[in-house]
């Protein structure tokens, strides 16, 4: 590993100052769960590391019944998993975090770091996109907001510029008559997912007809993708397992997987189809329960 200058940021403002001064030669490090591997392999050799891990102002979870949730970018996976408010009002996030990597990674890795790494098979991105999240970014020009669905540009690439920081993620409260689910496929437990799916299903008052759906897939393209063909095929449709099964067959219209050492592109599409179906069905069940007035999530 090449030597580098190490600067520990004292505040968000200080971090932005340093980043402005150092320009493209500086790289931000939060939990370092991915970055250290990259540095060790020599894939990146920055002159300067700006350590933002200690910025307490970005480590928070806030819930407001009216407007929804805010999670600071430096909140660890373990904090999200342990958050009682998220467990009770957004169970899908906890269920994603419970199976994210290993306990060591969850204890040190941060949600913002996970998203900024932009690994196409990230656990977190699909479920946060399905929840309708917004990324909050600060830079020398001030603050800006980007829908999380537009946050990812390609493999390991996001809209966050070298001088900018992702500061928080926000998403609205889950509406009534709605279910959100998440599932991932991997061959070895504790390993990164091969394919991830998250589904958001809102129903009409009849408890059967789909009013709104988001199906977000990871691991099947250079970024997380919305399976829009699947969503469109189900809108206004009275949901049945057969209808979901048939619509899930359209996943490949939104995916562009590439073969790798783990499996073929075709296999990723097959798994995406199975996971889309499974997550849609479980979100549907949860939404039905919500319509029926049962406690859910």
């Amino acid at each position, binding site marked *: 590993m090449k030597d580098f200058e190490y600067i520990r940021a004292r505040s968000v403002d200080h971090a932005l100052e340093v980043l402005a001064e150092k320009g493209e030669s500086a790289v931000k490090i939060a939990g370092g769960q991915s970055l250290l591997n990259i540095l060790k392999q020599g894939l990146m050799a920055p002159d300067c590391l700006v350590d933002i891990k200690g910025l307490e102002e970005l480590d928070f979870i806030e819930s407001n019944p009216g407007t929804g949730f805010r999670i600071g970018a430096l909140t660890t996976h373990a904090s999200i998993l342990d958050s009682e408010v998220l467990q009770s009002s957004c169970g899908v996030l906890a269920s994603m975090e419970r199976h994210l990597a290993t306990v060591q990674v969850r204890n040190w890795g941060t949600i913002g770091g996970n998203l900024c790494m932009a690994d196409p098979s990230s656990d977190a991105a699909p479920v946060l996109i399905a929840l309708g999240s917004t990324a909050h970014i600060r830079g020398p020009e001030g603050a800006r907001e980007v829908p999380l669905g537009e946050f990812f540009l390609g493999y390991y690439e996001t809209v966050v510029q070298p001088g900018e920081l992702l500061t928080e993620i926000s998403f609205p409260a889950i509406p009534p008559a709605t279910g959100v689910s998440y599932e991932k496929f991997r061959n070895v437990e504790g390993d990164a997912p091969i394919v991830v799916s998250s589904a958001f299903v809102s129903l009409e008052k009849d408890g059967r007809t789909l009013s709104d759906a988001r199906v977000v897939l990871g691991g099947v393209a250079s970024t997380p993708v919305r399976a829009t063909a699947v969503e469109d095929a189900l809108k206004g449709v009275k949901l049945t397992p057969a209808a979901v099964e048939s619509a899930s067959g359209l996943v490949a219209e939104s995916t562009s997987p590439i073969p790798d050492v783990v499996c073929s592109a075709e296999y990723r599409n*097959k798994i995406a189809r199975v996971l889309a179906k499974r997550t849609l069905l479980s979100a549907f069940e949860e939404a039905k329960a919500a319509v029926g007035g049962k406690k859910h999530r």
Partner: protein
Amino acid sequence: MEYSVLGKKVRRVDGAAKVTGQAKYTVDMALPGMLAGKLLRSPHPHARIVSIDASAAKALPGVAAVITAEDTLKLTFGNWRRYPHLLDEHPLAPDKVRFIGDEIAAVAAADEDTAEEALTLIEVEYEILPAVFDPVEAMQDGAPQIHTGPNVRNNVSETRHIEFGDVDAAFRACDRIREDDFSLHAVSHAAMEPHASLAQTDTDGRLTIWTSTQVPYYVQILLAHTLGMPEGKIRVIRPHVGGGWGGKIELFKDQYCAARLSQITGKPVKIVYTREEEFSCTRRRTPMKYHLKTGYMKDGTLVAKEARAVLDGGAYNAMGPTALYLTGFFQMFPYDIPNYRYDGFHVYTNKNPSSAMRGFGGPQAEFTCDSQLDMIAADLGMDPAELRLRNLMKPGHEIKGYCKVASCGIEECIRKAMKSTGWKKKRGNLQFGRGIGMGCYGFMSGGVFNWINTPYAFSAAMIRMSVDGFAEVYVGSAEIGQGSDTVMAQIAAETLGIPMDMIRVTSGDTAVCPPDLGAWGSRQTLMTGNAVKMAAEDVKKQVLEAASGMMEQNIVYSYDMRDGKVFVKERPDRTIPYQDAVKAAVRARGGLQIVGRGLYTPHGKGMVSPAFSFGAQVSEVDVDVETGKVSMVNVTTAHDCGQVINELGVEGQLEGAFVMGQGYVLSENLATDDGKVLNPSFVDYKVMRAPDVPLNFTSLMVETYEPEGPYGAKEAGEGLTNPNAGCIANAIYDAVGVRIYDMPITPEKILAALEEKKAAAGKKKPGKKPAARKPRKPARPAKKTRK
């Protein structure tokens, strides 16, 4: 007789040091003034070295030395000292590189970064040669020739033939014949501690090397050979070792280069392989292509077997020729097949060398054997367990010219495993998607192999007893995490009749310990254990002689030691503390300390091993029919390891062996493309992790008495790597009715096979709902299902 420490659940003697982090491994070590070493490796799978210019690297500030083949004796080396035609590897490549990662030069510098930078400054001009990666292609006329020499033809470096009975006549006379082809892939040892060495040359030219190895004595004599030094001037110290599994049973380039660079610089030099080097440039499990033909009778009697294996040996022989022999040998285990023929071919390819790895050819053999046995059972409509029971080896089994099997508990292993798992109830009665399968194995307890050509006994032990009763046990065996030091302490304590905490085992320092062949082939419990027992008996005899003088009993009485006391066997209430007898013995011989010596070498034990262990494995799996993913539900293993020495140790070994086998079957695959390893990291190379370990894991111990072993003990923990692939493959077949012939058995292959099966079923029965297999009825007692 009830043993005092044998057969008990004993804590490892090194356990506390390891779990508290006190234990130091070679990677942890440092010496003042130490230099960091790095190796320059070939980026090409096959090339001739035209020239090397290291001047810019030597000129880089901080660089202390750069070595190439010109700084070596250019000798070939390897474990095959008795068979020099198999020695094909140089410490640094003198003229040609044969795989991506082949070592060309080494640098010693002030720190790792400088050493790495220096590597980039070494200019090597290559003439790129055509390469070959598939062993069958490599055997064809016109294929690139990776090695030339009188013993190599079309890249075949070694062939092995095993034959007994009248195979052709038996095939003519049998009722049915089944022939199948299988292919087996490469996996990595993936030890947590990489290959690592720290070498120091003293002012008098003596060399000390601390290194992560399974074979300190081999490293000593092979360093002596390659460096042109007397063995006596080399001291090899093996600190705690973070795993070996066969990947550290040879002299490696880190060891040679650290030693050579320390000679040249006069400073300590440390070399630690990166994880990428571990995956790409060290050894791997041998990939094989197997053709298997078995002849059998309608009643399930196996009468003839013919096996042909082509091994993808990689760029050098390494220990591949032993895997070549053992895979053919263990192909027939644990079955009594009277007519058998094996032909094996060890073939060079431009990939990293294949070598020894836990099971040493056995896992490949048993995958093919167990898979085919289940196909034969299906053909005959027999329960696969019954087919196995009908054809087992029995105690006293002899294969003339090859081996004698004294103790053999395979039948009890199968019956115990069947009973424990409810085999008869479950087999054929589980829901579609869940299945149960069996695999069986036999394995060696140390090899009768003296490739290294040593005049020393295979194992030796020395015990010094001090006047306060503490016993210092010196053995050359290698504790590499398998629990060997604990076993030696137990055997010494049991034989001496003193508590475990009065024993200290010192192993793996060639300046202090007697030579021993080291940790491979499951040899230490039997071989070093026998030497320790003999040395302890020698000590005890000396103590009892003194006690006899002190206790003044009737001369017809005899003496023994137990619970720290010397007692009169015929009058057990008459005792003295053994320390008193030790003191008396020392005084009686003018102050000379009591020393006991022992040794062991197999004699008249055939060509393979002095004793064989056996076992049966039953796995229950769930297969997700939509994704092809396999989950382990229940795992039961019954193992015959003779007398259990440490029950905790055996359990740990069995569990570890299973999980390693589980990875071999379901997830691990050291993939290459044009000779380049595609997944040289733990991110991309998929080992099983703690959450993958089956929660329901049952270890059943079947105790037999092995007359050749210390207290009747034999192998435990390597053999169980062998049956997992076939066992899980058979369970998958039972679950969803698909048979995978090429390893690893990935979800993708299972799903593809399920789809193929569905399509075929759809074609056969037009109009009917295509079903992969009739959904089964829920489990219920077998009798009721018959109407």
